[in-house]
């Protein structure tokens, strides 16, 4: 089933994206660019950290189409945070999809699911696939 929850604060998906990492390697034959080593992608007030982020260009190779983060990602927006194995951020549409053991922490409650679709501009998220909510009683 599907659950829609507010996630963090609204962010502007056309704002400049800052990426910091230990290394960036560019393959000279097809130009594939991969950031590695605690990569941090920041846009407006959204921060995505991952072990590895690959840049995927549009057909004309003139713009970035999406960023594929893998190796365990953490997405923080406002005071909400979510963890997953992978994240694919479609830069042009501002849709960010977390997949693989997604854990969303919102205040006292933690929600687990298979996939989480975040609309960066609207600041909402849709959780899909075996959504389970854990309420921590003692507020730890």
């Amino acid at each position, binding site marked *: 089933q599907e659950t829609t929850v507010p996630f963090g604060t609204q962010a502007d*998906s*056309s*704002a*400049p*994206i*800052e*990426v*910091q*990492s*230990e*290394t*960036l*390697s*560019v*393959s*000279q*034959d*097809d*130009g594939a*660019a991969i*950031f590695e080593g605690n990569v941090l992608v920041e846009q407006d007030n959204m921060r995505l950290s991952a072990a590895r982020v690959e*840049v995927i*260009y*549009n057909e*004309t*190779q*003139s*713009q*970035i189409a999406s960023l594929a983060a893998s190796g365990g990602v953490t997405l923080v927006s406002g005071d909400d945070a979510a963890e997953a194995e992978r994240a694919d951020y479609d*830069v*042009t549409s501002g849709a960010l999809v977390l997949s693989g053991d997604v854990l969303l922490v919102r205040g006292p409650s933690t929600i687990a699911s298979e996939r989480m679709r975040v609309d960066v501009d609207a600041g909402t998220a849709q959780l899909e696939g075996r959504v389970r909510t854990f309420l921590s009683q003692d507020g730890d």
Partner: protein
Amino acid sequence: MALSESSRTRLISWLKIVLPLAAMAILSTLFLISRSIDPLAEIPYSTVDLRDSARSERVTKPSFAGATEEGDMIAFTAESALPRDGNRLDANELAAEIDFASGGSVAVRAEAGQIDQPADTATLRGGVEITSSTGYRVETEALAIGMRQTRAETEGEIRAEGPPGTFTAGRMRLSTDPETGKVYMVFTAGVKLIYDPGSTPGPTEE
């Protein structure tokens, strides 16, 4: 009016004297009062002191090309080169071009450089600009390029712009993946990049 017989002969005899003299005068202008042509000045010769350039074995427009062990074609050209000692050469306006067997190419330009034959390394210095066929333009202060293997490494940090955006990094090196033979431009020691989705040119998706 016919001239009288005697005046005609006098005229002719007089002409026989004047005409040759006039001819002589005209002929002499060809040599005596013509422009003095200094034969030496006409021959163009360079003002470079021949002894100096002979002694210093300065090479103009040297070029070196070859293939690296990985099979990539590499070529160096310079404006001029001056041997420093037995096996090192100082060059100015040194440029290098490497075409990778696995596809793509890299071109490098610098104000000056030093070629060290035994170490098989050329070190480019001063306004080094590296452009790659993948659309990256990298600026740094110094870059060492291998002449026998495909390797290159900057000595310090770089500023660059490319398809993912404009960025800086602590160092850049060119290395070949031994298994796949693919060549990578690797930026290390901290990469900071800014990509502006709004401003980059390109078709705007509806």
